[in-house]
């Protein structure tokens, strides 16, 4: 019996929520991470430096700037981890071969797998961002919060193609953790998760232009944290990341399929 994509999503939803509710530490992590990341940067920044200098460099509210960045980081990690690194987690648990044995393409399952966590994290983005934004910018910020969340989620989805390529490379490298540990922060760094790409050296800026996440981060931060967000720039960012997604997603699917076959030829699956 061949499972449909909906069957796979349902399976992933049940699996994720049972595990999520059973591991209370996961709930604590989801709740605390955006605050911790923001607190760490703001704390050291204000202890050693000054908010004035920050405002001179970026015309944005620093708290909303870093909070939006941290939340976008959380959403981006859903895709990087659940698609890019799903294989090595499954390989560690010994479940990978059984997932590859289901009577449908593994890529389909991998695409279904981040949906539950993405849905939950997106809701959490609104829950964290809304009160802070409303206190700082007033009730009118409500719409901006929802739009920020949508842009961040869309940005993460636009990253699926590249995540599939990373996943394929990881499976080909026999679940080499070292590669994953480097790739994970590198993507976030190049995308300018906490540091605007505009202030980066030119070569890094060019690299960041190839990642859909960079545009999502830029647009979501602009929308929620900047004093006078320019809608035109936000739209350009959203368009560019969508264009990259249109390019990367089919490429990712093809590359993944090729790498899976290659792994099976080389005998790379650890059982």
């Amino acid at each position, binding site marked *: 019996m061949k499972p449909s994509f909906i069957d796979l999503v349902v399976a992933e939803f049940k699996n994720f929520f049972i595990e999520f509710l*059973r591991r209370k530490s996961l709930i604590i992590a989801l709740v605390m991470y955006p605050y911790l990341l923001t607190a760490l940067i703001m704390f050291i920044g204000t202890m050693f430096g000054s908010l004035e200098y920050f405002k001179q460099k970026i015309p944005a509210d620093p708290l909303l700037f870093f909070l939006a960045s941290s939340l976008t980081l959380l959403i981006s990690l859903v895709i990087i981890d659940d698609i890019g690194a799903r294989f090595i987690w499954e390989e560690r*648990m010994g*479940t990978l071969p*059984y997932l590859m*044995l289901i*009577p449908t393409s593994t890529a389909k399952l991998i695409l279904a797998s981040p949906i539950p966590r993405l849905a939950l994290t997106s809701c959490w983005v609104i829950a964290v961002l809304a009160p802070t934004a409303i206190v700082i910018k007033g009730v009118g910020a409500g719409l901006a919060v929802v739009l920020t969340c949508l842009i961040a989620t869309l940005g993460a989805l636009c990253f699926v193609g590249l995540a599939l390529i990373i996943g394929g490379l990881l499976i080909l490298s026999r679940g080499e953790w070292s590669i994953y540990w480097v790739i994970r922060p590198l993507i976030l760094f190049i995308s300018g998760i906490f540091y605007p790409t505009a202030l980066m050296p030119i070569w890094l800026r060019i690299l960041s232009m190839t990642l859909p996440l960079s545009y999502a981060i830029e647009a979501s931060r602009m929308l929620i944290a900047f004093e006078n967000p320019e809608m035109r720039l936000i739209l350009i960012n959203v368009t560019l990341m969508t264009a990259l997604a249109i390019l990367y997603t089919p490429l990712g699917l093809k590359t993944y399929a090729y790498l899976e076959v290659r792994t*099976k*030829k080389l*005998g790379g699956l650890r059982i």
Partner: protein
Amino acid sequence: MAKKGIEVRELVKRYSTKIRKGFLRSETKVIEALRGISFDVHHGEVVGLLGPNGAGKTTTIKILATLLLPDSGDAFIEGYSVVKEPHKVRECIGVMLTVEKGFYPMLTGKENLEYFGRLYGLKGNYLKKRVEEILDLVGLKELGAADRIYEEYSLGMRARLSLARALLPNPPILLLDEPTLGLDPPSARRIRELVKNLVRKDGKAVLYTTHNMFEAEIICDRILLIDKGVIIASGTPAELKKLVRGFRAIVLKLREEVIANKLIKILNTSGYEKISKIKEGELVNVKILVEDPERELTTILKLATSHGLEIDYIAIQEPSLEDVFIELTGAKE
């Protein structure tokens, strides 16, 4: 003759591995895991793939399970090619790989089965009913383990759950890779009984890898002896034993391994070739295959006593599957 469930034709598989030669230097070595093996498994029979470590048993199972692609040759499951039609093949097989892991540790046995069931396209009440049925069949319900998280499972429970997953979509073909490895005798027996029943009642075709001779002898209808990627013999256990017909085994039990090694050396120099050594608890068994054991026993005893070697127990046995295995693979220990 029943319908063929598995057809394997001239499968060849090579792996290349890197051998470390220094801090930065390494050398690539090609290992021939399978050298053109062919065999069939019919519905209603258990075929054992028997061989020492590294013989190619797991590689065969992986190829049949579509987890590995052969370099040449092909295999067909219910007529579907594992190379060209992997999705179709996956709809027909239930696979059991390592027994100690392979499930989500924080999910219960039942939740794990429900998850994998959904991945197989089972849903709603049918899925629930099927999971209950299978849990009952493998005895996990009776052990009160269905609602316990996997992390708490013993190895025996894990093996049962693994078999349960393989049976969940009710596949006509089962590929079981050393399903009783490391299990306690009651759990191992339960798994064997289950497999036998499935074959008799449902007519499933089962490929069963093991290096446990006793197990192979009692569960398999036919056995394929594989060594270094080649099938060196095949047949029913009785047929295989005939390969060493004319021979019987003299078994000498000794207290220490050093004494056993000394005895083997003496026997070798005296022209005895078919000798194997197996540890059995505190004792070491030295087995010598000879044509006329009654006559040879006197000579062997004379040799042992003249060198001051103490023997604790002597017996003459019919050759076992193990003797066939040792004789054909050349594995002495």
